[in-house]
């Protein structure tokens, strides 16, 4: 055989013609139906920069919720951005009270394993008090799913246990 020399070999098999309906005269690829599958593992670790909005995450660790306000047009972006996308003015930091109203939500009963959350998992869009646009985060400690209503007041809650990403220093809860 010799194939045992291939350390990452998974299988060798004969594939079927996936389009026999297109090939009444016979399979034009019949000499190419032997297929090999191998395992290919790649792992990467990044040293990721969180950009000019890093202060948001630093303040989350201090249990404070900051965003940005445009000094020209006055727009307060729910998610901070260093440049106002409406008028291209450099913004300034502004602290918000961390309260708001639920704009919409979804309830997931299945989540991909990479997410490391319990189900049912609730993703929320929140209109923060003092901001003109929304903020996206999880809603936790909501009690029963039936009790989650668009328009209900919510507030930012802060982590006290170690987290795997600075964004997880916060979440929303019913206010």
């Amino acid at each position: 055989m010799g194939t045992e020399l291939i350390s990452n070999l998974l299988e060798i098999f004969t594939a079927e013609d996936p389009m026999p309906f297109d090939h009444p005269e016979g399979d034009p690829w019949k000499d190419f139906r032997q297929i090999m599958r191998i395992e290919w593992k790649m792992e990467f670790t990044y040293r990721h920069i969180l950009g000019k909005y890093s202060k948001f995450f630093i303040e989350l660790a201090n249990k404070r919720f900051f965003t940005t306000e445009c000094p020209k047009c006055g727009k307060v972006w729910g998610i901070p951005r260093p440049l106002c996308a409406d008028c291209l003015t450099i913004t300034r930091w502004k602290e918000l009270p961390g309260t708001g109203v639920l704009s919409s939500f979804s309830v997931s009963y299945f989540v991909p394993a990479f997410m490391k959350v319990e189900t049912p998992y609730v993703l929320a869009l929140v209109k923060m008090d003092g901001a003109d646009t929304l903020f996206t985060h999880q809603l936790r400690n909501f009690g029963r799913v039936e009790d989650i209503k668009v328009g209900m007041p919510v507030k930012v809650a802060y982590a006290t246990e170690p987290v795997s990403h600075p964004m997880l220093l916060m979440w929303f809860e019913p206010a």
Partner: protein
Amino acid sequence: MEVLNKKRRVFVLGGGISKFAAERVDGNMRDWVNEAVLEALEDAGVDIQDIEHSTTSYFSDHFDKQLKAGAIFHDNIGMCPKPNVRVEGGGATGGLAIRNAYAYIMSGLCDSMIVFGAENMGRHVPSDVAQQFIALASDTDWEVQVAGFYIAYYAMMMVAHMEKYGTKEEQFALVSVKNHRNAMYNPKAHYPMDITVEDVMNSRMITYPYKLLDNCLLSDGAACLIFATEEWAKKHCRTWERKPTIEMTGTGCGTDFMRMADRPHPYPGITHFRGKRMAAEQAYKMAGVKNPLEDFDCFEVHDAYSGVELVSYEDLGFCKEGESGKLMEKGVFDLGGELPTNTSGGLIGFGHPVGATGIAQGVEILRQLRQEAHPKRQVELNAKRGGMDSHGGTGTFCVVNIFERRD
């Protein structure tokens, strides 16, 4: 937008599709692109040696872990040393590729363009990893860390739509029923099925309000289209006189903020696709479309999730905001209805190999306008015009393209 030199016109000469399926273990992306290209060349009656330019369409560098894959597709079909360009716009990549062909030909950069697209997203990575790769197409600093799950974003949009307009789960379940059913007459479809609204409603709840059968699947597959000017076609296309003449008469593109959270209220808010409305307005203006329900015979609409198709009807101008569910109930968009949509099966029934999807929409419209579709899914031609709506992110990229039959 008076940029168009009306002396130049762009025609659709041929198309091809390599089967959409859950996992194509018989080959990889390059093999599927080869198949789609061979079919398109045969359909168009042209030789690759005569085609001047190509456009590559695929979305993810993670799925196939082959950067610059377009160079391989292009050299596999003997296009070197002629020019190639890759376009990318998430789920709208295929629509952008068609638009790119139009732009290059109209500008005079070339007289002929072959557009090929594929995506390798089936089962060669576990579905968890696949979901993570797709999640990377949302904001990785602000959204992925807390959500990272496209269905959860779209479900929030649909909850808001239901809240605002009273849209019902049964109404978007009808989209799934229609698209799975249409796919039964498309042998290249991934997911043909004869199901009922009850089947959709009773399928496993993934993310409220979306059940398992409301969602499209990850597919493998490829698609190809060939475009050229009339002058080029007369010279190089053996089927030019024999097959109905199909012209590309409109194209539009629009965008929105990457994160739904940043979008302005009340419109689009978190219910609508502002970029799609802009894309449709541009394309309709170019093609002279006044009333889309009457001016199109068929339309391929982006249906990654069933509710997305309903909302898209509203932004494509088929009805007013909030009225799509009722029209769906009336059968307006079914085969035999006023404007049949996703006759191919759409993303839900035909499949969604992202880079191929938008191009496959174009192949379907080409087949419909030439009256070559399976008799059970062939639409009646009145306006002799078909549209397609290619969409990425949560409406972050939207492209609308229009083909017309010239008799």
